[in-house]
């Protein structure tokens, strides 16, 4: 009887394993088919030496350790990696990230851009041998292992080829349009699109816990507004439903504005925080110089909601 039970258990495990690995293979094959036409076999004498290797959000950690979390926070679907080699020349690594949307491709590109543009894709930068660009749902990086005129020319050309292979362009995150360029004398200096409270805290620390209930299907736009040395922040968030927005509103009020009678509060640095919920949107102002300005900032974007839906 025991032998029979063991046989059955073994059979079940075998069938399950075949099913799972088969499903994974089909998924990978389908994903690979979608991107395989994106890269050339050769560029300026550099030929494919390794890859393509396909990763998804569960396996990307094997390739890039904890760095994968940044891409996953922008809804990465797959990552395809190839390495190009040429005798006597540094290797070139091509990384193609297929994101959930063009907004996410833009989001990951713009979250940390620092270098001059390179005229590739819908937005790009090139510095230190690294080309980064986004187009449609794709974010792409191309990197030469060592400096050199030839390898940099090949890096840029490879990026251009990949960009050309992406036929569809995509739009910027709509929610960014809710951030006005100017509110009174404060001008927008920087703006970020994101989904993750960890990344939010990197740009403007709010709380350890995710009190605003940010997640992969929640879009947020954070704007930094500057007047001289003064800085104020306007955060606009769109939730999948009004109920989730209400939950986030209550969570924020409880954690950040306990005891506040109204929708605004003077914080310990003498500045003002205000919050307002409208439909599935939440707007929060931090470090406004006074209550009136906080209300003005809130009003500056709520009137635009209907325009960008």
């Amino acid at each position, binding site marked *: 009887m025991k032998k029979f039970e063991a046989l059955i258990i073994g059979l079940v495990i075998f069938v399950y394993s075949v099913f799972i690995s088969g499903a994974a293979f089909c998924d990978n094959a389908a994903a690979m088919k979608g991107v395989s036409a994106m890269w050339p076999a050769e560029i300026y004498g550099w030929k494919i030496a390794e890859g393509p290797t396909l990763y998804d959000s569960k396996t990307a*950690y*094997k390739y*890039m*350790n*904890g*760095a*994968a*979390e*940044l*891409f996953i926070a922008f809804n990465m679907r797959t990552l395809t990696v190839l390495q190009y080699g040429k005798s006597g020349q540094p290797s070139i690594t091509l990384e193609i990230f297929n994101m959930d949307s063009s907004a996410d491709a833009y989001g990951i590109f713009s*979250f*940390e*851009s*620092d270098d001059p543009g390179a005229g590739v894709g819908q937005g790009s930068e090139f*510095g*230190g*041998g*690294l080309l*980064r660009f986004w187009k449609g749902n794709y974010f792409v*990086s191309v*990197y030469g292992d*060592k*400096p050199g005129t030839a390898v940099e020319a090949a890096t840029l050309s490879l990026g251009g080829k990949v960009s050309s292979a992406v036929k569809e362009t995509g739009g910027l995150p709509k929610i960014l349009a809710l951030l006005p360029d100017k509110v009174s004398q404060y001008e927008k200096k920087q703006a970020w699109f994101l989904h993750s*409270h*960890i990344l939010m*805290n*990197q*740009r403007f*620390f*709010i*709380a*350890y*816990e995710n*009190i605003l209930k940010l997640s992969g299907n929640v879009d947020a736009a954070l704007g930094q507004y500057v007047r001289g040395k003064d800085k104020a922040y306007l955060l606009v968030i769109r939730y999948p439903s009004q109920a989730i927005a209400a939950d986030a509103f209550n969570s924020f009020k409880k*954690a*950040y504005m306990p005891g506040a009678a109204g929708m605004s509060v003077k*914080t*310990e*640095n003498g500045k003002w925080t205000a919050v307002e919920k409208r439909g599935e949107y939440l707007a929060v102002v*931090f470090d406004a110089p006074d209550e009136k300005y906080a209300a003005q900032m809130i009003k500056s974007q709520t009137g635009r909601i209907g325009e960008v839906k």
Partner: protein
Amino acid sequence: MKTGKSITRRDFLKGTAGIVLTSAIGAGLPSIVFAQAKSRVIVVRNAAVIDQDGKINEAVLQGMLDDAVKAITKKKTAQAGWKSLIKRSDIVGIKTNAWRHLRTPAELEQAIKSRVLEAGVDEKNLSIDDKGVRANKVFQNSTALVNARPLRIHHWSGVGTCLKNYIMFVPTPSEYHPDGCADLGKIWTLPVVKGKTRLNIQVALTPQFYGRGANFFDRRYVWDYKGLIVGTDPVAVDAVGAELLRLKRMAHFGEDRTMDVTPHHINVADKKYKLGNSDLKNIEIVKIGWKEGVLL
């Protein structure tokens, strides 16, 4: 990681959040000096350790490691120094770092390995690993660890530190990413590593002092420092490493250009987890070898 009551920006502004929050919004760390013994950190450098093509001279590197071990253990020979750190009966894991752009050099791994074997450890009781440590029998059963990783800035933790290098011992490393990996020190209290680390080595041969993004190596901000930062106190080693990167940014940019994340996990490892000294006033830096551009 859950921390109980949610600590917000306002707690920081009130000054009620305690030491854990001190740097979460980029403010400087308070200079709290506890009455504890000074930690010693060895900074050993040699101009000949890397040639013009970036190739590491194994013999020179071995000599640097030996000098550091002699200095930290105050023994006359490196072998005697290693024997004071590692017992013959120890099961030894050498925790390295395999980040492909700037990894723990294989030459250093071999230099450590050869000295650990000379200390009498059976080769079957020795392993070198990074990502596979949780499944590695030697690491699972280890009684001693040697911790060696390259010094560089880091997207999640501000600085890639010796403290950070143990994140592969936990099943879900990303749980430690919030708030600039503030609670990395907690990993050092887990049974798999607690009390086992005999030596910490920040590999500062070619550190990276600035950069953007999670996965992007930037050779513009890498320089040939040609050094190792070595000590038994991981917090002190990391504090010195972080200070070196800060000083290099000052020298390069003419200002301490703001990083997205401050390395406040070093301070938290000191004040909350009591793992060592983070205050440079409590650290004796012993400099050996090449002095040009030492910065510290």
